[in-house]
């Protein structure tokens, strides 16, 4: 085991997969020469050359579409979109083409494309550099959406994403880039679509995704001091959703909180609530509570702290849930 940062976990995952499979290539703005606007791809150009690691002009639609076309013909592109907020520019290629192409061509192709992108708050750079858009992509049949909650998860999930035969939106949590955890030295993969009981507990289930898993952990530690045992489930992927693991946890604890950084309406929490309201309604001893950002754009600077959810909001929600029982 060694201590590895989220940033380097991503670099390593790409590096290992590029070494393993010559069809894997990486394109994006400033990914090559300068190693990425946030250093996530440092060293890869030197190692793999400019055929496989390429800087692109600012042309989000074209580069994602290039990835879709190349993937359909058998390559395994990794396209970096610097910030998730710019994915809107490539939405047609992602939602109408990457997601639908296999289906519309009757299974003639598969699209093993990964679109990596920095998501969420943390840089305090405001509404055009802070969004978490998992629910937009989760709504579109054909896509997978991955949100790793720490460096271990990031490495294992990114490697699986690169090997997956489907288009994957890989959301790198920008506020975690520097955070280190221990990671096995040997190769490992984490399958897509399997949630992870990050911390077992019997009183309340907190299903969290991405950065919110970290907040949920802190909240659980806090609540443990009060004698409350929180089960923290890291959903890992917003699509597919591991309903089994989530249902099992709710059937055990009878209380559910869902935590994500995106706003509530039509969000991940809504989908999980609908799942439970359909499949495990009678197990609930309290209303389902969503812990999310406010329904506003993300303001710049430290103001984002008022808008984005944190550990304290989860603690409050757990208290409310226990009262609601």
């Amino acid at each position: 085991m060694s201590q590895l940062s989220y940033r380097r976990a991503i670099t390593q995952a790409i590096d290992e997969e590029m070494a393993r499979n010559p069809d894997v290539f990486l394109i994006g703005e400033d990914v090559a020469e300068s190693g990425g606007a946030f250093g996530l791809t440092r060293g890869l150009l030197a190692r793999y050359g400019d055929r496989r690691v390429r800087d692109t002009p600012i042309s989000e639609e074209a580069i994602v579409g290039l990835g879709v076309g190349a993937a359909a013909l058998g390559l395994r592109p990794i396209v970096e979109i610097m910030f998730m907020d710019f994915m809107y520019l490539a939405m047609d290629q992602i939602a109408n083409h990457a997601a639908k192409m296999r289906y519309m061509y009757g299974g003639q192709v598969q699209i093993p494309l990964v679109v990596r992108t920095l998501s969420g708050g943390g840089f305090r750079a405001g509404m055009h550099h802070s969004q978490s858009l998992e629910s937009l992509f989760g709504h579109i049949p054909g896509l997978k959406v991955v949100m790793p909650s720490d460096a271990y998860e990031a490495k294992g999930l990114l490697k699986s994403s690169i090997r997956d035969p489907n288009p994957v939106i890989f959301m790198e949590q920008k506020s975690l880039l520097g955070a280190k955890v221990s990671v096995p030295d040997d190769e490992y993969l984490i399958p897509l679509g399997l949630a992870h009981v990050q911390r077992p507990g019997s009183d309340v289930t907190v299903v969290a995704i991405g950065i919110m898993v970290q907040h949920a952990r802190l909240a659980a530690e806090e609540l443990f001091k009060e004698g409350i045992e929180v089960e923290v489930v890291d959903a890992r992927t917003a699509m597919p959703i591991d309903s089994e693991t989530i249902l099992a946890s709710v059937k055990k604890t009878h209380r559910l909180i869902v935590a994500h950084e995106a706003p509530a309406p039509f969000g991940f929490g809504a989908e999980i609530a609908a799942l439970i309201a359909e499949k495990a309604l009678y197990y609930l001893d309290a209303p389902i509570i969503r812990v999310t950002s406010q329904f506003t754009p993300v303001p710049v600077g430290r103001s984002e702290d008022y808008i984005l959810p944190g550990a304290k909001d989860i603690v409050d929600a757990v208290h409310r849930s226990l009262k609601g029982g």
Partner: protein
Amino acid sequence: MSEIHAIDGNTLTEIYRNFYLARRFEEILSDMFRRGEIDGWLHSGIGQELVGSILGVALTSQDYIVPYHRSKATFLSRGVPPHALIAEILGRQSGLCGGVGGEAHAADVSRGIFGSTGVIGAGFPLALGAAFKQFYQATEGIAVCGFGDGATTRGSFHECMNLAALWNLPLVFICENNLYSEMTPLRKEMKETRIAKKADAYGMPGVAVDGYDLDTTYRALQEAFVRARSGQGPSLVEVKTYRWHGHYEGDPEEYRDKGEVDSWQKRDPLPVLRQRIQDEGILDAFNLDQSEKDIEELLSQAVASAKASPFPTRENLLINVYAQEGSM
């Protein structure tokens, strides 16, 4: 580029066969649509079949083609069985895509045809991906991207022209300029209507040709293919052409004069080519008739076979959303 010679007899015959097949295909489909035999809609390529007819002879099996919504001639000239294309348009199981994609989203990846889309301009990035693949694997293949005049005002045209030129990719952009984008005439789409000239902005060669003249069209395309194949990068070929039918079958066509349609129809390159094949002594009338009869036969069997194919089952329609590990 001196490698490109005059078109030889065999090639002329093959182009004629492709052209005749495509023309009759369009006519038959149009009739079927009028008789209510096709769900959804149909975008006839009648009048524009020449480009597609050439592609079948001028490209190799390694090349990729991203067709556009009027490119039925391209499918046929690449050897796609007419019944599979008709079945796809009819939404039947024996169609190219199992009847799921339909007219706008037909593909035959085994023949290098993919990237068809209902979204105008979305083919450019997909074609860029195909050209990138050729470059990445250092194959001898190239990629070709078909589109209309209307598509050139989409942002994706610009992004992809720029990237193709910047990376010197083996990609040929073929614009079938038929003077309209749906009901909108060219002069309301752009102020600078010389589409070929737009290549300058990317440092790419661009050329405009009369799409009703076989020789110039053939030569311009071949030159672009040779360039791409020999590592000299992308080009833009603007083919001036015309669609004889409306934007879609049933279009009331209030936006153009019957006279304009007539003047193009008078120049129809199909009989011209037939005559030439006779005049040059390549085939005589009897042989041509025979070959046409074969095509008629092929098509009527194709229609029958397509119509006999069932619609997809509910089960058919639930698969292929995701690929499974190791599928394909």
